[in-house]
């Protein structure tokens, strides 16, 4: 593992060679530094950090199901658009993100992408709160005074912005809790073989390596992985049904 001193010596055009953990350490170290060059370095590290997560972001968007209406999802033709919007949100997040661990980053990233998916679905369902119209359009306020529609909207939009910021903060906290629960949830998997396959999968092990480690067949690894991840998802979503069976 590189020391902080070694990390500081790495130029920004070599950030692509750093691990997620190393990139995140640079972000934490540089983001609030008074030397103007350092926050810029934090920005460059952040951008590489989220760039390397492009497939995770896409995958989360593609598998997103609205929590209150599972049939509501991001249509295939809209995935790239939602990914682009998610990235803008992720870049903006650097300004307010105070996390100091990679787990916090991961949780915050997941929250950002999920919020973007939900916003998109809300729009797609025609429940969009956003407004657009003629610049000359007039409207009446609560007191009956006529004013420009956009003048009225500014105050409402500010309220919405504050509400969204609060929701995002709450969402990040929930995501972080979920992140922390994952570690214990894996340990809580009752079936030892399923647990081991999930652990090895998350450690980056291939199916062949797991077959060798558990001295079992490919089909069995497939089944254990499916059931282990199903159990894990159920535990995290509060639908715990781990039967402990092989």
């Amino acid at each position, binding site marked *: 593992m590189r020391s902080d001193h070694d990390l500081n010596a790495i130029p920004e055009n070599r950030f692509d060679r750093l691990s997620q953990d190393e990139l995140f350490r640079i972000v934490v170290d540089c983001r609030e530094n008074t030397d103007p060059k350092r926050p810029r370095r934090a920005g460059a590290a952040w951008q590489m950090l989220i760039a390397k997560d492009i497939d995770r972001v896409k995958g989360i968007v593609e598998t997103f199901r609205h929590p209150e209406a599972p049939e509501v999802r991001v249509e295939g033709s809209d995935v*790239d*658009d939602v990914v682009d919007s998610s990235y803008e949100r992720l870049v903006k997040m650097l300004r307010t993100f105070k996390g100091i661990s990679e787990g916090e980053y991961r949780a915050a990233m997941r929250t950002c992408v999920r919020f973007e998916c939900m916003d998109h679905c809300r729009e797609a369902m025609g429940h969009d709160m956003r407004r657009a119209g003629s610049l000359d359009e007039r409207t009446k306020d609560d007191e009956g005074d006529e004013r420009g529609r956009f003048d009225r909207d500014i105050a409402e939009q500010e309220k919405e912005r504050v509400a969204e910021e609060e929701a995002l903060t709450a969402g990040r906290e929930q995501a972080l809790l979920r992140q922390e629960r994952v570690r214990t949830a894996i340990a809580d998997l009752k079936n030892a073989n399923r647990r081991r396959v999930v652990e090895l999968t998350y450690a980056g092990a291939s199916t062949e390596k797991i077959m060798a480690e558990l001295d079992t067949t490919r089909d069995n690894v497939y089944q254990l992985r499916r059931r282990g991840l199903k159990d894990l998802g159920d535990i995290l979503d509060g639908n715990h049904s781990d039967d402990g069976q092989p």
Partner: protein
Amino acid sequence: MATIVTMASPEQLLSEFCDAWNAGERPRVSEFLEQAPAGDREELAALIRTFLEQAPTPDFSPETLAAISSEPAVSELASLIESQSGFWPTLLPRLRRRSKLTRDQVVAQLAGLLGLKGKEARIHPYYHQMETGTIEPGGVSRRVLEGLASVFKVDVREIEEAGDFPVSPAGPKAAFFRHYSTHELAGPPAMNLELGAHSPGDLDEIDQLFLGGR
């Protein structure tokens, strides 16, 4: 990109996906879901989602990193570093693509909303600067932002905040909110196609709309 073998069972597809991910082969979720029987797709999507939440970020090869950097979301991200206009270089082209409008069409509609029909040739270079991040966002008037919000059918706040946002934390937000003198805003000629060497007194209505601030 990962090459997937046609398979049907969710457990096989899940494992193939995990293996391809961990090998840094960039498997595409939709391709795997399409391989599953229709009745199994929801379960497979949930399993992949659970995996992705915690999956390690692979060690990508230089070739794969190059491919990642050429993805639109990532390449536009990189272009933001040098942007003077916050997120406009990503937001405005995306909104335009979503609206299925050409740049000329956006300018024509904007001119109409601003009551400046016939002045499209003057407005076009300024809109170009907004899309390419070479205009100071604090100089662009609220009328222009509201006009664009109307053209793209989005909340004006979305455009305003994107322009105001300092992409790098090195750019203090105050710098984006402060008022600029027309002398400051003129900048180098190449960056202000229409303003050129004009003095502040030469600013006409269109210049004011894009350089005069809110």
